[in-house]
């Protein structure tokens, strides 16, 4: 009959073999990205359509439950917001006039546009890193849609994070609340520099670290913190959040505190990727 394919290898030997495979993979993938990318591309392409579907199911189920509870609150909020919109519309008209005036002055001064309108492309979050140590997400657009590594990602008018790896039809975003991720930032008004850093434990209270501010700099609680002009990865002027709980550190040279992000990371299902890359001066 058929030749028997049942042969026996000691589990111990398989274990050592697979351990070696893992170690080689770890070393290879930390040295070069090509193996990593090839595997990622393959797996992600196969699983992406299913994931997108499942994510919609999941969002729908969890979303519906939440929706019902939210309805009442939203109705109240709606009434309140309508009033606010009217007020803001009025303000807006005034600001537009002022902006036009500003443009005129800028033209006179021959100043370069510092905060140009960034081109963005919308994307859905299809998968979230379920490991409770990390805050990374996957979106349904990749290199085929023009997404590149280190593009900035925003939502709700605030900074979400940065693209860390790209496959053909998907990309991974590391959010600013991911532990250890730092963003070069500054106070919007005074342009005094600071550093915003994600911290896993702090984020349970909805906060990020805000550090390295000179003691005498004009950064106070409640100030808007935006991405810095000098950051190497982030485009300037993107709102990150608001400063809170600032205190002078024991070295009496710097102050530090917390940052409350504007983005609601608990309810994030679509984002905007800014397709403009930061110009660092180096040719890419």
């Amino acid at each position, binding site marked *: 009959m058929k030749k028997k394919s049942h042969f026996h290898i000691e589990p111990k030997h398989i274990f050592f073999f697979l351990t070696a495979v893992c170690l080689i993979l770890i070393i*290879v993938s930390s040295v070069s990205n090509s193996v990593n990318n090839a595997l990622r591309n393959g797996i992600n392409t196969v699983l992406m359509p299913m994931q997108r579907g499942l994510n919609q199911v999941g969002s729908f189920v969890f979303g519906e439950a939440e929706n019902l509870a939210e309805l009442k609150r939203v109705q109240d909020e709606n009434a309140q917001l309508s009033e606010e919109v009217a007020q803001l519309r009025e303000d807006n008209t005034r600001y537009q006039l002022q902006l036009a005036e500003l443009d005129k002055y800028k033209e006179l001064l021959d100043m370069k546009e510092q905060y140009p309108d960034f081109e963005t492309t919308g994307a859905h979050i299809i998968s979230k890193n*379920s490991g*409770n*140590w990390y805050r990374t997400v996957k979106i349904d657009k990749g290199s085929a849609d023009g997404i590149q590594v280190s593009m900035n990602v925003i939502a709700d008018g605030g900074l979400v994070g940065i693209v860390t790896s790209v496959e053909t039809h998907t990309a991974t975003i590391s959010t600013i609340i991911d*532990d250890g991720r730092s963003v070069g930032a500054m106070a919007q008004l005074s342009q005094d520099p600071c550093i915003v850093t994600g911290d*896993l434990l702090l*984020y349970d209270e909805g906060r990020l670290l805000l550090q390295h501010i000179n003691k005498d700099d004009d950064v106070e609680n409640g100030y808007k913190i935006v991405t810095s002009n000098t950051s190497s990865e982030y485009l300037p002027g993107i709102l990150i959040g608001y400063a809170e709980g600032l205190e002078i550190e024991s070295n009496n040279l710097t102050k530090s505190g917390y940052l409350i992000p504007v983005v609601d990371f608990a309810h994030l299902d679509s984002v905007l990727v800014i397709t403009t890359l930061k110009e660092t001066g180096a040719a890419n």
Partner: protein
Amino acid sequence: MTWKRILFYVVTIVASFMVQNNLFAASNLIDTVPNLLLIVTFTFGFLRGKTDGMLIGFLSGLLLDSFFGETLGFYALVYMVIGYGNGLLGQVFYTEFINMPVVLCILSDFLFNLIIYFFDFLMRGKLDILSYMRQVVLPEIVYTVLLTLVLYKFLRFLNTKFAQFEKRSAKKFV
């Protein structure tokens, strides 16, 4: 191990991965998510032995690595060790011991999180191990144990059914 069984594992792993990363995590980036792939790994490791355990662990980990890991192979190694370890435990303890799944779950999940803490967070100088235990590890263990209580029997049922199916089809070919 037959190709059919490997296919069965791959399907189970991919399905679990999807449920874990898409369904559970769908609406919220912050909430604690139970570690479903770990449940699959330790359950089959315990029920089927070292070889199956480490294979499932390896594939589960590799899937996670290829999705989110910065370095390929790290999760694969961790999950594989857990699968293998549960295979060893399976040789020592009775399958029917009533609280066994819970004990396995706690041990596996604790080990899993400890390894991640040690190799990533501690290495970056985050020394506050107790806070991490309380805020990250403990919630995950609780959720994972709860899910284990629901899922263990189902996975064991799947395992038995598949073993029967294997036997039947083996007979057919001989």
